[in-house]
């Protein structure tokens, strides 16, 4: 009896399976197109209707006012427009604002683009601009980048297409920060919906977000900048760098962007199936010296340690040329960049001389430098998320130890590490800065005496004065001079030892055309990209 039942089940199952077909429904539905293409010449190129992008982390809040992670930024670049957009030279170009004027030092008037609609069909107006900045400036709103906009006193609507920004004080860097996405007031007012369902004026609209898995976009046919070339874009979240590049190689994604592992890049470069594009990014990686540390408060020690850092080895071996050796906080992509800053070439003998000048010598023969019975002992710390930085500290530990600096390494998760930076609870920290759209962003918060991001409590009256002045002066040539002087001072005094200027890399299918890599890492350029089959 039992056997009979089983037999019945089995035959039923077999019938079911036999009755099933196996075909890709999508290819089946697009069959007519394909047959048309077979007669060669009717259309010589067929383009894919989707570009698949691999991203490293899932996005947090997608509301541009609240967003702070890179993936949320990658979403905004497709979904939102700012008043301006920074071009590859970081100069502001018209976006939602078509032109702007600066009648006096504390007033900016923007003329807005007409006939722009949000992706829900509602028109974009001056009210939306005012609302966006009003909320950012409201401390209770918890906007992470509030401090960048703090010099704005108020935003006034002049008429439908004109807004006026009133500043508390002259604020030269303002335009660089006005690329932040403008949100639709009528939706944002209803509460916190934009965080997970963004609606902007940008080239793509987000259609759905499967958390920790994928984010899907569809072209915004009514985009004021023209209909995007590829109808769909999907961001796949693949946390592991190696897996993400493996996905590119196996064709599961078409496009990946930094952060990447250096060794993967050199391999892909040798592979004809892919294109590799590089650019200078807006960031640098540096050693932050804690001035409150008794040993490190001596500038000679900091200079000596700088002579122990072989930036070429770090750049060429650990980073495989992905990031280039750095010099000062003024990055090459910046208009204020200069090569003319003090340099501490790799020279362990020179380092020993400087240690000796500062009174540190190995008197007891234990291989460790000492002074007044105290050992020269330091801790090098960084965060555990970035394997390249772990390699730097481990490499430097070895270099430091060899000349007699007792060095411990501490790698913690980012939240722990950043808290210790904030609290000044570190000796030498290996950190980086991103999004340095201008010299103010690269220096003010970092070196101004009372500033919150001045982890090492560096203080120099002349630098403070220069950084203040840099914000007030609007003439770019004069600002260049100001920032270059400040950069020289902080480099000479080794507040930071800038190890690397960061680079951005995009690697993609060789059939993907039209994308241009951007120093901010922006994927806005995907709107002009198409993938031919």
């Amino acid at each position: 009896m039992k056997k009979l039942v089983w037999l019945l089940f089995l035959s039923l199952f077999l019938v079911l399976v036999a009755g099933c077909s196996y075909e890709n429904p999508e290819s089946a539905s697009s069959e007519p197109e394909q047959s048309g293409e077979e007669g060669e010449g009717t259309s010589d190129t067929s383009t894919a209707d989707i570009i698949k992008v691999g991203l490293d982390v899932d996005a947090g809040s997608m509301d541009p006012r609240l967003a702070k992670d890179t993936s949320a930024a990658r979403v905004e670049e497709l979904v939102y427009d700012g008043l301006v957009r920074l071009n590859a030279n970081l100069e502001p170009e018209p976006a939602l604002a078509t032109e702007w004027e600066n009648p006096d030092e504390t007033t900016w008037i923007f003329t807005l683009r007409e006939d722009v609609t949000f992706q829900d069909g509602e028109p974009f107006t001056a009210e939306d601009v005012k609302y966006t900045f009003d909320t950012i400036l409201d401390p209770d709103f918890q906007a992470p980048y509030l401090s960048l906009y703090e010099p704005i006193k108020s935003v006034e609507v002049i008429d439908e297409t004109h807004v006026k920004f009133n500043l508390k004080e002259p604020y030269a860097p303002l335009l660089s920060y006005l690329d932040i996405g403008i949100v639709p007031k009528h939706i944002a007012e209803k509460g916190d919906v934009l965080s997970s369902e963004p609606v902007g004026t940008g080239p793509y609209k987000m259609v759905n977000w499967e958390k920790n898995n994928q984010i899907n976009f569809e072209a915004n046919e009514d985009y004021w900048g023209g209909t995007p070339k590829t109808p769909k874009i999907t961001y796949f979240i693949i946390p592991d760098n190696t897996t993400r590049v493996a996905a590119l190689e196996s064709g599961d994604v078409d496009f990946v962007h930094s952060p990447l592992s250096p060794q993967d890049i050199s391999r892909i470069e040798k592979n004809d199936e892919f294109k590799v594009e590089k650019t200078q990014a807006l960031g640098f990686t540096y050693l932050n010296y804690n001035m409150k540390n008794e040993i490190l408060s001596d500038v000679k020690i900091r200079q000596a340690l700088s002579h122990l850092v072989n930036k070429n080895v770090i750049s060429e071996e650990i980073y495989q040329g992905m990031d280039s050796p750095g010099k000062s906080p003024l990055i090459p992509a910046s208009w204020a960049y200069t090569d003319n800053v003090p340099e501490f070439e790799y020279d362990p003998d020179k380092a020993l001389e400087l240690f000796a000048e500062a009174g540190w010598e190995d008197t007891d023969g234990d291989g460790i430098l000492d002074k007044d019975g105290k050992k020269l002992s330091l801790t090098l710390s960084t965060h555990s998320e970035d394997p390249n930085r772990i390699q730097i500290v481990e490499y430097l530990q070895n270099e430091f130890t060899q000349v007699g600096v007792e060095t411990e390494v501490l790698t913690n998760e980012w939240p722990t590490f950043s808290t210790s930076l904030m609290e000044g609870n570190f000796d030498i920290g290996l950190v980086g800065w991103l999004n340095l759209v201008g010299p103010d962003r690269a220096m003010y918060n970092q070196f101004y005496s009372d500033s919150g991001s001045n982890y090492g409590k560096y203080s120099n009256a002349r630098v403070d004065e220069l950084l203040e002045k840099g914000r007030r002066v609007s003439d770019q040539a004069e600002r260049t001079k100001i920032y270059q002087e400040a950069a020289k001072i902080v480099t000479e005094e080794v507040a930071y030892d800038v190890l690397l200027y960061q680079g951005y890399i995009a690697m993609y299918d060789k059939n993907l055309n039209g994308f241009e890599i951007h120093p901010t890492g922006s994927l806005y350029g995907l709107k002009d990209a198409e993938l031919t089959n």
Partner: protein
Amino acid sequence: MMTFVGKRLLQLIPVLLGISILVFLLLHLIPGDPALTLLGQEATPEDVERIREILGLNEPLYVQLFVFLKNLVQGDLGVSIFQDVPVLTLVLSQLPATLELAFLALVIAVIIAVPLGIISAVKQFSWLDYVSMFFAQLGVSMPVFWLGMLLIIQFSVNMNIFPSFGRGDPLVESFIMTIQSGNLYYVIESFKYLILPALTLGVMSAAMITRMVRSSMLEVLNEDYIRTAEAKGVRSFWVILKHAFRNALIPVITIVGLQFGNLLGGAIVTETVFGWPGIGRLIITAISQRDFPVVQGSVLVIALLFAIINLVVDLLYALINPKIKSN
């Protein structure tokens, strides 16, 4: 039976309460400030202070604990600091993926382990026995993430058979689609994503279950009544399957249930390697962001699942072996 279940459920309450308190305290011991991680590197100390105030992080720890427990009792797991979504929504959105993965891993484990275990028991001391046992030992000796990485390199990159990351359509959905359309495409597409992570996750359980099947089969095979059956000349294949395996099933069920719990834990690593959007990755991400409510909520849900599975296993145990119940 009902009183048994009721008693067990009652016992669950102090355990869950203990877990809540333990997780809460542990998380607050971890250095790193959620407000700071929320605001990012460019935050000023004033910003951080302001956000701490809003998030209630400036209250004394016992007050925070009290608020957490009070909300918990009302079924409120709180809101994610980072995603601004209720924790329960977040957890429930990720849970099916993990259950799907753990379930398939278990199926794979059983498919591998039961025949291996039976063969090695029946052919005790043969080379088949040694080989199966060696593989079982190997399975528990490998770090999961290493195996996963090797599988990706071999099957996704070198051979390009399976996708290297992520999840396709939910298995249940694609199953329904296949039934409706009669097109196997849907199910097979979902399976392509599942197979490598499930295999990675299942290998360790397979090893454990193989050992269990073998040893309990051996024991039953040595019982007198099996020998009698053998002596009577019943075809040995049926002897083994019908008598021995049914009796060997009890410890096997126990370990299978136990493994399901372990799989939920193992999923943390597997999901990270394969980019599988499940609760394990949710927890890892939340820990790295110090998103306390999400970690607390996810851990509680996992603990609850764990307890329910154990309960079900014990019930099955009692059902299959009425002898124990009467003890």
